[in-house]
């Protein structure tokens, strides 16, 4: 008769351990083999070398661990390797994008770029101050419209409408809105302004409307999820103190969830700040600084990048340099927003510790 401990192999509490240097040694060895094979047969293809090295490492570790440490440790190491590999693979494009944007954008990352517009500029020089202002105006106005609407909708969905018909249909339509292609949002805003003001009307505000259409569902969904995470006990504790529902929401539910709400809002801004297509239609192109978002076309950074890259003048390199600096600026703006969001979130986060 076999007992449980017998089916689990031996009663021993110890098992073999691979020495600590095994991992780096096998990693370097398999990478070297990969490079050697790739340079012999594929003319030094780096991607092939990396893939080959990874597979070799996986196989070698599997064998070594299985022989020395046993099956459970081997599968543990296999999982570790796969997870780490996936992580590196995911980081590669990020690092590559950052590197490209910095190395190519640094050339024009100068004072001129942030003080001059493209008015009367052909060829080198000039800057993107009109596009930076435009992006700030358009995204700022879009946020001003979307954040209150989105937050209040989320509060309705999680606090008042739990499961009723209206809430269900709102949730459904918000989900549908999440899937709207951005170009459709742009056409919608353009057509709306055409109806309200006149055909062909373009302005920063039209762009904000298009971005709002894209932004509201993101704010609603993320905020709703976060608000649902607030424990019901806190709401009950507040009701039991004789606090009305609306004050409970304003003073307890929202502050408890504030850091998540802020991250959601920052993410939604990051989601729309790089939109090109709707702004192309709704806000249009211009080479000059326009400080009135309610009339006349307004340039934005993504459109500026697209325009500089797609329609360079005679001095192609100057246009392309400006495009890359525009991309870098956009990344920096999003990073700055993230940073500010985190600081605010930390300031208001629930206090823990003793």
């Amino acid at each position: 008769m076999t007992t449980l401990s017998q089916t689990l192999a031996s009663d021993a509490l110890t098992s073999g351990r691979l020495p600590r240097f095994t991992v780096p040694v096998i990693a370097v060895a398999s990478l070297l083999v990969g490079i050697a094979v790739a340079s012999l047969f594929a003319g030094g293809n780096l991607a092939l070398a990396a893939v080959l090295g990874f597979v070799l490492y996986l196989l070698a570790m599997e064998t070594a661990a299985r022989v020395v440490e046993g099956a459970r440790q081997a599968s543990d190491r296999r999982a570790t390797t796969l997870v780490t590999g996936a992580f590196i693979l995911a980081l590669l494009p990020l690092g590559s994008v950052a590197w490209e944007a910095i190395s190519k954008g640094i050339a024009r990352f100068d004072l001129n770029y942030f003080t001059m517009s493209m008015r009367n500029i052909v060829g080198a020089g000039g800057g993107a101050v009109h596009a930076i202002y435009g992006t700030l105006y358009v995204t700022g106005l879009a946020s001003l419209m979307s954040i209150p609407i989105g937050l209040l909708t989320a509060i309705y969905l999680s606090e008042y409408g739990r499961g009723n018909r209206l809430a269900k249909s709102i949730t459904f339509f918000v989900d549908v809105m999440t899937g709207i292609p951005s170009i459709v949002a742009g056409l919608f805003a353009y057509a709306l302004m055409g109806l309200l003001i006149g055909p062909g009307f373009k302005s920063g505000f039209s762009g904000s409307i298009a971005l709002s259409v894209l932004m509201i569902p993101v704010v609603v969904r993320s905020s709703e999820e976060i608000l649902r995470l607030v424990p019901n006990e806190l709401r009950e504790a507040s009701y039991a103190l004789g606090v009305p529902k609306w004050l409970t929401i304003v003073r307890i539910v929202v502050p408890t969830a504030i850091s998540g709400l802020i991250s959601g809002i920052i993410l939604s801004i990051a989601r729309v700040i790089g939109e090109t297509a709707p702004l192309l239609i709704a806000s249009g192109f211009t080479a000059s600084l326009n400080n009135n978002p309610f009339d006349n076309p307004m340039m934005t950074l993504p459109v500026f990048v697209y325009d500089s890259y797609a329609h360079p003048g005679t001095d192609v390199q100057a246009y392309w340099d400006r495009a890359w600096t525009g991309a870098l600026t956009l990344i920096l703006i999003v990073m700055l927003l993230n940073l500010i969001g985190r600081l605010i979130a930390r300031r208001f986060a629930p206090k823990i510790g003793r």
Partner: protein
Amino acid sequence: MSKRIETTDLNVYYGSFRAVEDVTITIEPRTVTAFIGPSGCGKSTFLRTLNRMHEVIPGAHVEGEVLLDGENLYGVGVDPVRVRRQVGMVFQRPNPFPTMSIKENVLAGIRLNNKRMPRAEQDDLVERSLRGANLWEEVKNRLELPGSGLSGGQQQRLCIARAIAMEPQVLLMDEPCSALDPISTLAIEDLISELKEQYTIVIVTHNMQQAARVSDVTAFFNIAGTGSPGRLIEVGPTDKIFSAPDEKATEDYISGRFG
């Protein structure tokens, strides 16, 4: 500063399901009344009807009357928010507000209701409530630190301080010690004995020794089976319920033959 609660033929429903049936009970001021009974028999549900907290759950409603010194809590035009200001509640699990310091937690009832109070009065109220909850000596030097940093027993006493800072007429406690260790439990039981000098206290407990120790009156709830509503089987002075109950079911439950 404490009021009598009377209910007559009170039925509590969740949607169409009747959870508690025909409860008639009188809870005297300045006494501790304990509700005991097996899980799911409607003790907590009934307790929550006494300050209209059960309405927070969608579909829950009540038939019958709950009188607070003769005034029907379910009468026309009664605002549940005002009811809860007179009938405070302490929950099973300590739930201090995580965004607030110890002091702010005690003042939560005042501040959340947007009431203005001079600073000196606030400090006075904080000290009075924390002393009332036997917590003052332990936290007086860290009033500005978050309430969530306290131990479980301290957090529960903080919640009691928060409830009594509102100076309610009645204090409901829904298994206040079930998440606590014996020492914290003892601290809270001592506190209950002190608090009954001023308040009407109703406590739900699964711990029969606790009911015997702290309460003056004990009410035994039971259900016939799953799906049928909970009923009040017997209510009487604690000594009598624990020594010579009138009902067989009460005796069986107390002597540990079921439940």
